[in-house]
């Protein structure tokens, strides 16, 4: 049945070459853990991506119950955690996953660094990787505010204060960041929009570039 459906579509659209081109590529011996267990360090990039996928999924589902509003945000998060079926698990996925993305991304970066994989001709991909790092940090910073509890509020207050310490422009940067003079309703909606619309768009674009480049240039050779 599945095969027949696939064949029917393939006959008309010839989709096999498309996914073949994506999926079929040689895995060099030195990055295959089946050959040498220590090659698992080459999995960190893929694992980072896997966790990003689960972050996107759990985030989409959390958005079904969350409200970015100063009156309701905390209560909606409480509702998710205490009342919705498996809500604490889904929120937990997003909470722990957030830290895991950072950890995995950092391990991936260390692997690239210590294998010298950032060297010519792959410098541009390193740069894109650094941009991804910054976007992920942005996710962490904006997402931290959304539960609208004490920890969220004061962490953002400190973050905004740090932004303000920028020479000359600091005051304006802070005002733009928190959407006004006080950390409040406008900050929450602003951070929410950045967290769920702007940053995901940026991240997906950068990840696309990251993957196209690695496919084009191949995985760096053995040490």
């Amino acid at each position, binding site marked *: 049945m599945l095969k027949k459906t696939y064949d029917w579509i393939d006959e008309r659209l010839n989709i096999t070459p498309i996914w073949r081109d994506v999926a079929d590529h040689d895995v060099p011996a030195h990055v295959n853990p089946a050959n040498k267990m220590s090659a698992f360090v080459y999995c960190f990039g893929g694992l980072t991506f896997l966790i990003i996928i*689960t972050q996107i999924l759990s985030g989409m*589902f959390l958005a079904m*119950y969350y409200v970015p509003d100063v009156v309701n945000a905390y209560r*909606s998060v*409480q509702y998710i955690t205490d009342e*919705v*079926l498996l*809500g604490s*698990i889904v929120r937990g*996925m997003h909470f722990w996953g957030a830290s895991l993305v950072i950890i995995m991304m950092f391990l991936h970066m260390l692997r690239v660094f210590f294998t010298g994989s950032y060297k010519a001709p792959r410098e541009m991909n390193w740069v894109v990787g650094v941009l991804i790092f910054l976007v992920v940090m942005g996710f962490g910073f904006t997402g931290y505010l959304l539960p609208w509890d004490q920890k969220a509020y004061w962490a953002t207050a400190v973050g905004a204060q740090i932004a303000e310490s920028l020479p000359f422009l600091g005051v304006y940067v802070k005002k733009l960041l928190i959407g006004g003079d006080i950390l409040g309703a406008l900050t929450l909606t602003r951070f929410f929009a950045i967290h769920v619309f702007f940053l995901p768009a940026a991240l997906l674009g950068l990840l696309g570039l990251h993957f196209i480049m690695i496919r084009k240039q191949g995985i760096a050779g053995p040490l």
Partner: protein
Amino acid sequence: MSEKDKQEKKGLSRRQFLTYALGGTGAFMAATIAAPLVPFTIDPLTRSSGGNFVDSGLKEADVKEDFPKLVEFKVFRKDGWIEENVKQRAWVIKDKSGEILAFSPACTHLGCAVSGTLDASGNPKPANDGQWWFHCPCHGGRYDVYGVHDPSTPPQRPLDTYAVKVEGGKIMLGSLGKRKA
């Protein structure tokens, strides 16, 4: 024996095995992620509303047999994380057998609020045409004093009724139910 026959005899080919193993692992991983997300999404199906009786503020002795009386009462409602007492209305009448009926004002056609036939000071008066007492402003639905619909107008069943309980002379209203056409 041709090459093809030989392959079929061996049963599962290496390629097939790897396809299944890869597909199975992928499906397992997808299922792990989906397992909490699906219950999370269908949570509303596990919740039911109401069922508790609340005091309508109306005494049994005040219920008339000729015309329905409008009562306003508060019902506790839990809407996600918002818990509040919302105002609800009911038209209450005693039918010929002495049973108390409490109608919801929501027209059974498309849910607009029906109004009773009242005089200028808001007191019930006999229906203008002698029969149809409730009128719906939206599509001309009409009902008699017992909430029974006129089948020649859009609504096809009588007004919904609240469960009624009398406690110490007070009329308590419960959950809303449908009546047969």
